[in-house]
């Protein structure tokens, strides 16, 4: 089963990335040429590829840590003994994760509307000029990040809560007796004890965020001026809109390589972090 449904498609895609399989190839297989590494060479000369790569890294490097920080913050709040109605908040924070992105996007498009949007209305109250969130190339990606963080933080929050509940209460009691305040408790107990959870969350979030697709697909179609075009969205457009399958497959493998390297780096760095 795994051979048929996993290895075969992957090998076929790898092979396809060495061909110029496209819409002509669809009509007559004789129109497909084996072109070696040409697709990969074309990628390096393709301004849109670099734009997509830059946007994707922007999203991962800003959105990823932000999402983890918000998840951790929410988890700490909910786990705190001072908070009441824990399960209510846990549920509310988790709701966006379950909601369908398309319906969420419709609502957020209105929130971001330059003339009638809720967000600009609020900004106006504190004296900030209206911003064309999804229409301005500078603000479109931050708007997408904000949406993605809001939509996804609940999932990591649940994992963090599980991690927090596994930290023995005695450690905190001992620390309090030694006179440690909240900040140093967080630094010396919570963070180190959460390290394995953090590693897991970090890698899963990174992989997920590298595959940014649905948010820009629904909200902006990659615009304005391609400022929210991600690698996967570009891959989708090349592959399914124009049917340039060979080129699209080579994009997929470049993304695979990037995620693979990113995961290795995280493993190395974080392991050193809690072993050393």
């Amino acid at each position, binding site marked *: 089963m795994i051979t048929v449904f996993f290895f075969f498609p992957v090998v076929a895609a790898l092979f396809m990335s060495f061909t110029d399989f496209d819409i002509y190839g669809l*009509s007559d297989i004789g129109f497909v040429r084996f072109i070696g590494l040409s697709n990969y060479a074309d990628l390096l000369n393709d301004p849109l590829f670099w734009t997509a790569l830059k946007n994707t890294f922007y999203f991962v490097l800003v959105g990823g840590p932000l999402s983890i920080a918000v998840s951790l913050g929410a988890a700490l709040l909910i786990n705190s003994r001072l908070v009441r109605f824990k399960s209510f908040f846990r549920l509310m924070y988790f709701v966006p994760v379950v909601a369908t992105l398309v319906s969420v996007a419709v609502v957020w498009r209105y929130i971001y509307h330059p003339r009638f949007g809720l967000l600009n209305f609020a900004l106006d109250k504190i004296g900030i000029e209206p911003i064309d969130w999804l229409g301005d190339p500078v603000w479109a990606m931050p708007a997408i990040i904000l949406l993605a963080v809001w939509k996804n933080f609940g999932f990591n929050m649940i994992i963090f809560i599980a991690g927090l509940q596994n930290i023995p209460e005695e450690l905190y009691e001992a620390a309090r007796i030694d006179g440690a305040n909240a900040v140093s408790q967080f630094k010396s107990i919570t963070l180190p004890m959460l390290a394995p959870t953090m590693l897991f969350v970090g890698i899963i979030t990174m992989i997920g965020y590298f*595959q940014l697709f649905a948010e820009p697909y629904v909200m902006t179609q990659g615009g304005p001026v391609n400022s929210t075009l991600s690698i996967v969205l570009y891959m989708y457009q090349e592959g399914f809109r124009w049917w340039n399958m060979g080129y699209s497959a080579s994009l997929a493998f470049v993304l695979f390589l990037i995620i693979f390297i990113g995961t290795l780096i995280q493993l190395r760095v974080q392991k050193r972090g809690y072993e050393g």
Partner: protein
Amino acid sequence: MEAVKLRLVSTGLLFSLMLILNGGCAKDGDVTTVRFWVMGAEGEVVEQLIPIFEEEYPHIRVRIQKIPWTAAHEKLLTAYASNSTPDICQLGNTWIPEFEMLNALEALDSRVDESTIIDADDFFEGVWQTNIIDDRLYGIPWYVDTRVLFYRKDIFEKAGFSKPPETWQELYELSQNIKSLAGDTERYAILLPTNEWTPPVIFGLQAGSNLLRDSGTFGDFSSEEFREAFGYYAQYFYEGLAPVGVTQVTNIYQGITEGFFTMYITGPWNVGEFRRRLPGHMQDKWATAPLPGPDENYPGVSIAGGASLVVFNESDKKDEAWKLIEFFSRPEIQLKFNQLSGNLPPRLSTWEISDLKDDPHIRAFYQQLDHVVPLPQVPEWEQIAMKIQQYAEIVSMRRMTVAEALAALDDEVDRILDKRRWILSRSD
């Protein structure tokens, strides 16, 4: 990647499940179900005509699937690749070369020869031609489409224009007048949405550009004609005469009612929409006019667009699908279709039995249809049009100069056409 793959597998499963279910109920008794894909606003309109057809042909049921224009192209290609094309479909006539090349379409010549309803001589010549590739006919025109200028009469008068602009120069001066009327309020003269490729392409055609050169194997966008047109187009954004970006106006009907913009270059379907969606007090304030041209020759050219009905090769209900095409080609049905959608009929006899030519909003289209030019007939056109749109947006936001953008556009279009050059060189 994983997610996409998973989705592909599940879509595949879903499709096969649908096929099984279809097979189960398609031949329920003696009733045959024809699958009909319709795009955009036509979808809602067609639903009102189908009952007439089904009453006449009780053994045929029509199942309509509505597809938004923005997703139509990829849906059709995906359907073709997965052998799940519909029986009959609406196809923009610039897409016909592409699907003909894929061998996806059924040639209709012999059916037209035998038909007592469809007569080639009764259709607008230029539009009929866009359905012919290598002497074979692949589609029957459903409606004709060209673009004209929609505008607010009252604002024109305030800006000192008693009649619509006839040259580029007049259009520009008028736009400046409208802009200065607005003072400090945020108002624009003309809406040139950068998610539509038609405005820059029309200006290019008006200036005499062929868009592509050497029988459609290279881009010709750095040519003097296109550069002039593109520069003229860009000016509207640079000088604040047209809104930059597409998020400003989410509802064009509200936009024109508020006077947020005064002019919009668009097609016949919007006559119906304007009548339906603009409030009552607006109805005597808007009008249409043929497009201004770069010089004294009025009107300037516009594009020969429209949509045809096609039958897919894969279909096993071609006879029933053809019955539906004949139904939609009957003058009285075309007239009903026109009344419901505002789309203009492709048959001359339909124009004869109606009072369309006397309609003040339609007259501009009738005049414009005498001044239309076809778009390049290459399978890659849709992809090229998207590139034009992309660079138009880049220029409107001042990310590149006109010259830089056009050089880059030529580069990209040449790359898109690389495969076509190879295939043409092989068949020589």
